[in-house]
Structures are given as structure tokens and as C-alpha cells.
């Protein structure tokens, strides 16, 4: 029993990490149908900036807030300098631009920061809680509740606020949205700022557990992207469920079958799900969104 609990804790923790990254994909996708491959770099920037601000002597909490703001500014710059000038280009071209941006950000991080691995202290100490013979770190709870809080905020944003609905309208038909008086340029800028901010929050939360370095974004974005696809691209609930599902499959496979097949099992499940439901578990087909 304690073994199962331990696998469960591991699965939920890792799943929440993936969910946090996956949630970052939703806003930009909802605003423009673009899958932002620089999302992992936002996570990295959040973690790395916090590390360097913290080491410069700023207390952890203000350092984290500053890092989130800085990353949002990078997100806005990415939109203004790379995405907006390519207005009118196809979605595929825009996605390729984000891949280029991710390589650029990784390179800049090597120069501005360094190439070493870093971490900063966990928010509430390192003493694990013991529950039924299994252990869980306080930081895991921060990550899990962080993922839930961001999910809640996004859900509220997209369903209850006018700006959230404007984001969805921009994605559906930019010209029609403009005719309705929506400032689509502003919506795009806002969505990049928010996505970058969410990525940075994810980076701040996970760094005490996963550690960070300039290239940590690639692996995180890959798993986060898989989580978002599994749950349904653009759906906050999908990101949450997809992330937790992947974390759980990994932990249970490693625990009960073999750690050799951990990643294989995950991708078999993703393939199977997408085969039956091409838009992911909670995704709606494109036609429904008109």
C-alpha cells in the first residue's frame, strides 16, 4: 500500500509539472492557433531569472515576481519583434518562427546566465511529509496547488471575462473580431504576455524540484506539449488532465512494470487516445468552434 501511495505521489507531482507547462500553451493557441514551441524557454527563463536574482541578494519571493514580469516582457517582445511582423503568414510559418525563437532564447540564456545547473531553496523547507508510509515533499504540494490555481484562473478567464472571450473570438476569425471592435493586436500581445507569465510561474514552482539550466526547456516543453495534445490543445481542463495522466502513467509503469518502458507506455497511450479522439480528450473539433 505504501508503495502504491509513493507511486501515486510521484505521478501527481510529475504530472502537475507537465500540467503547468501544458497550461502555458493554451492561451497563445487559443488566440492564434499557434503552438508556441518557445513555451519551454519561458519556463526556463522563469527559473533561471529567479536563480540569478536570488543569488544577487533579492529575497526569494520578490525575485520570483520580478522573474515572472521579466519573462512576460520577453513574451511581449517575441510577439512584437517576431510574430507581429509576420502577420498574414500561415499558422505553420508562425510555428516555425516560435521554434526559431526557442533556439534564440536558449542561446541568449547561455550568454546572459551561464551553462551550469542551478536551483534555489524550496518554499517551505525540505522535510518530507510522511503519509501512510509514503513521503511527499512540501514543494510537490506547491506544484500541485499551483497547477490547480492556474487552471482555475484560466478557466475563469476564458469563460467568464470579456477579454477571455475576445481572445477566443480573435482565434476564430481575426477579421470578424476586428469588426466587432476587438483590438486584435492588443489581444495577441496580451496572450503572449500571459503565456510567458504562466510559463515563468511554472519555472519558479518546479525549479526547487527539477533544477534548472539553459536547456531545461526542451524536455519540459516536449512533455508539456504531449500533455496538451492528450488533453485537447487549447483547453485548460485538458492541459490539467493530460499532464496528470502522463505523470501517472509514467510513475505506475516505472513502479509496477519496468522503468525501461516508462516513456514507451506514455506514448502508446497518447497515440491510442489520439487515434480514437484526434482532438484529445477534451478537445472539440474545429467545426464546433465556429
Amino acid at each position: 500500500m505504501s508503495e502504491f501511495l509513493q507511486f501515486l505521489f510521484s505521478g501527481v507531482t510529475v504530472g502537475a509539472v507537465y500540467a503547468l507547462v501544458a497550461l502555458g500553451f493554451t492561451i497563445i493557441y487559443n488566440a492564434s492557433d499557434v503552438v508556441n514551441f518557445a513555451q519551454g524557454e519561458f519556463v526556463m527563463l522563469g527559473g533561471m531569472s529567479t536563480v540569478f536574482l536570488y543569488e544577487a541578494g533579492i529575497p526569494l519571493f520578490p525575485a520570483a515576481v520580478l522573474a515572472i514580469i521579466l519573462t512576460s516582457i520577453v513574451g511581449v517582445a517575441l510577439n512584437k519583434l517576431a510574430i507581429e511582423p509576420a502577420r498574414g503568414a500561415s499558422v505553420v510559418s508562425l510555428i516555425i518562427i516560435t521554434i526559431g525563437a526557442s533556439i534564440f532564447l536558449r542561446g541568449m540564456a547561455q550568454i546572459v546566465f551561464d551553462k551550469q545547473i542551478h536551483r534555489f531553496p524550496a518554499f517551505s523547507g525540505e522535510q518530507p511529509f510522511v503519509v501512510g508510509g509514503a513521503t511527499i515533499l512540501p514543494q510537490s504540494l506547491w506544484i500541485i496547488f499551483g497547477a490547480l490555481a492556474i487552471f482555475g484562473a484560466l478557466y475563469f478567464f476564458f469563460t467568464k471575462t470579456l477579454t477571455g472571450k475576445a481572445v477566443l473570438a480573435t482565434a476564430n476569425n481575426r477579421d470578424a473580431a476586428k469588426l466587432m471592435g476587438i483590438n486584435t493586436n492588443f489581444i495577441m500581445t496580451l496572450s503572449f504576455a500571459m503565456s510567458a507569465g504562466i510559463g515563468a510561474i511554472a519555472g519558479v514552482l518546479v525549479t526547487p524540484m527539477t533544477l534548472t539550466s539553459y536547456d531545461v526547456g526542451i524536455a519540459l516543453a516536449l512533455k508539456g506539449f504531449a500533455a496538451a495534445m492528450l488533453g485537447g490543445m487549447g483547453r485548460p481542463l485538458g492541459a490539467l488532465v493530460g499532464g496528470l495522466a502522463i505523470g501517472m502513467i509514467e510513475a505506475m509503469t516505472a513502479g509496477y512494470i519496468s522503468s525501461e518502458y516508462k516513456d514507451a507506455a506514455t506514448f502508446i497511450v497518447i497515440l491510442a487516445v489520439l487515434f480514437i479522439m484526434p482532438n484529445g480528450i477534451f478537445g472539440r473539433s474545429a467545426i464546433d468552434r465556429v
Partner: protein
Amino acid sequence: MKLKVHMKTATLALATTALAVLASPVLAEIKIGSTLAQTGPASFLGDPEAKTLRMLVDDLNANGGINGEQIKLIMYDDGADPNKARTFATRMVEDDEVVAVIAGSTTGATMAMIPVFEDAGVPFISLAGAAVIIDPVKKWVFKTPHTDTMACGKIYADMNKRGISKVGIISSSGGFGKSMRAQCMGLADASGIEIVADEVYGPKDADMTPQLTKIGNTAGIQAVIDTGFGQSAAIVARNFSQLQIDVPLYESHGVASKSFIDLAGDAANGVRLPASALLVAEILADDDPQKSVVVSYRDAYEAATGEPVSTFGGHAADAFNMMVAAIERAGPTDSAAIRDEIEKTTGFIGTGGEVNMGPNDHLGLDLSAFRMLEIKDGTWSIFE
């Protein structure tokens, strides 16, 4: 008018080039080539190696070079990409016409370059870990770092001493982790060690508690070996302490840097690992033959770069010092003579240990080159 100006500039440029070409043979130079992973995923290896080489070359040249001739270091950055490494190897041989090479931060890059230098007959000292580089012996290829086989041997020797025989292995699925796992598995029987649990994880995984839970619950387990390095090894140590598994954890020599202790925090305490003397320069006995070598390299490196010393830079320093000694004996132009002299290196005390090369041994280190360390109160201590 404009044309005239252009003409003038062109003539001037031509004249300058001609001067430069004429001038260069006057300065006798010994060209040593190098391509390292200064950036990219193995930059934690290549960066200190490159800085060490630059520092040592500048030092030597400032002090008159080798028998009055200056060394010219020709350096490339292959980013640990074997394809790039091979291209640079060819360029060093054909365009730069180097007399000898110190290169290869990773085993992959090294293996890609070996055929080039074997064909061209250029002595090549590799800075990469795996035993396959020098086993079987290749005529022109040498290396300075300890092999993963030796790391396992040292760990097993320590376990034998302490009566540990049932061991669990958790290994990273990356190249280094895989290779070391294979070596540890192969060496187990001969060392009287029984591997009772065998789990793997991805080098970028965020949590290894499921694997460690399984290992920890294996009946009769007496110790755990982790073959990862960098980020993943720190996470394994943290998870290990989180699960409160009550047996010793042995890490590989790959984690032998101060950053491991910083990243693993309190969880690092009690971790044992084989490492070179460089890390514990401070606590070596004064009559230890390596003491003066490692202390002077460490002080020089830390003064020149402002960064803490790592074993990887030490491997580059050993390679360079052996190379310089060989060139001093063989003269600066004859690659074949330099190769012969490198092979004759004996009694050389480097940061990695005492090197005694021979026609059948292009590494020249034995188990005594490793010190068994234990991390106590956030710092290294000798654990013999």
C-alpha cells in the same frame, strides 16, 4: 575617384597580406589542435577543458614556450556533435596542419575523430571517459580521464571492504549512465557483488521516486549505485533522502564537482563516490605525491577564471602537460616522434593520478588514481 580609393585600399590590403605571409615563417610555432564541447549539452566538460588549455598555453608562451618556440593553440567548438568534431578533425589535419591534438570532450566526438587522426598519423589525447577509446589500443590515440570500468572497480573494492554484496543499480539512460551500468554489470561477478535490482531513468526526468521505491523494497539490499551525472544525479540523491532508504548511496565519478553538493543540498550528505585527488586538494596528506600538482593547478585555474575547479579541466591539464613533456623530448615537428614519447610517459604525476603508459596501455592509470570520498556536512572527506 571612388575607384582610385578602392584601388588604393586593395593594394594596401595586398601588401599587408604579403607582409603577413612573409613574416609568419620567421616566428616558429608549434601548432596544437583542439576541438571541445565548449557549448551544448556537454559544455560542463568542454568549458573548463577549453579554459584550462588557453590558460596553460598563455602561461607557457609567456615563459618562453617549449625550447624557445611558441605554442599556437588552434581551437574549435564542436558542441559535442560527433559530425562537427569529425569535420574539425579533418580541418586540423589538412588545413591547420597541427602536429598534435588534444580534443574530444565526449566519447561520441572522440570516436568520430579517431579514424581521421589514425589515418593522418597525428597523436591524439582524448579527454573523454569511456574505456572503448583506448581498449583495444589504437596507435595514435591516448586519453587522460579515468574510465567508468575503473569507477565501478573502485566502488566494488570499497563494498568488499565493508562486507556489502547485494547491490541495486539505478542508471540514467544517457550514454554515460548506460555505459557505466554495463561496466558495473560486467564487473559484478568477478568482484563478488550480486546485482539484486536494476532500474533506469531518463537523464531529464524530474522524479525518480518510483524506481528508488522499488529498489529500496528489494529484499536484502545493502547499497545502491547511481550511474547518472549532473542534474539527474542530484535528483536521485534528493529522492533517495526523501524516501529515507537506509543503505549507503554510491554515485559515479561524474558527479565529482562542488555543484553536485550545492544542487543536492542536505541530501548529498552520506553519498559516497570515487573521484580524483583534485577535488580534495585541501585534505590530502602533505606527503601525497599529487598534493603539489593538484594544489597548483587548482589555484591557477581559480585565479584565471574565477570559477571553482572541476576534474574535467584537470584532465585537460594532464593531457597538455604530458604533451608538452613529449614535445620537449621529441622536438616540435615530428608527429611520430611525439607519439612515441607520449607512449613512453612514466611516473608522470597529474591531477588524475600517476600515469605510466606503455605500448599496451594508452591510459596509464590504475585504481589508486581514484580516492573514495564521502560527502559530510556539505563537503568532501576521504573515506578509505
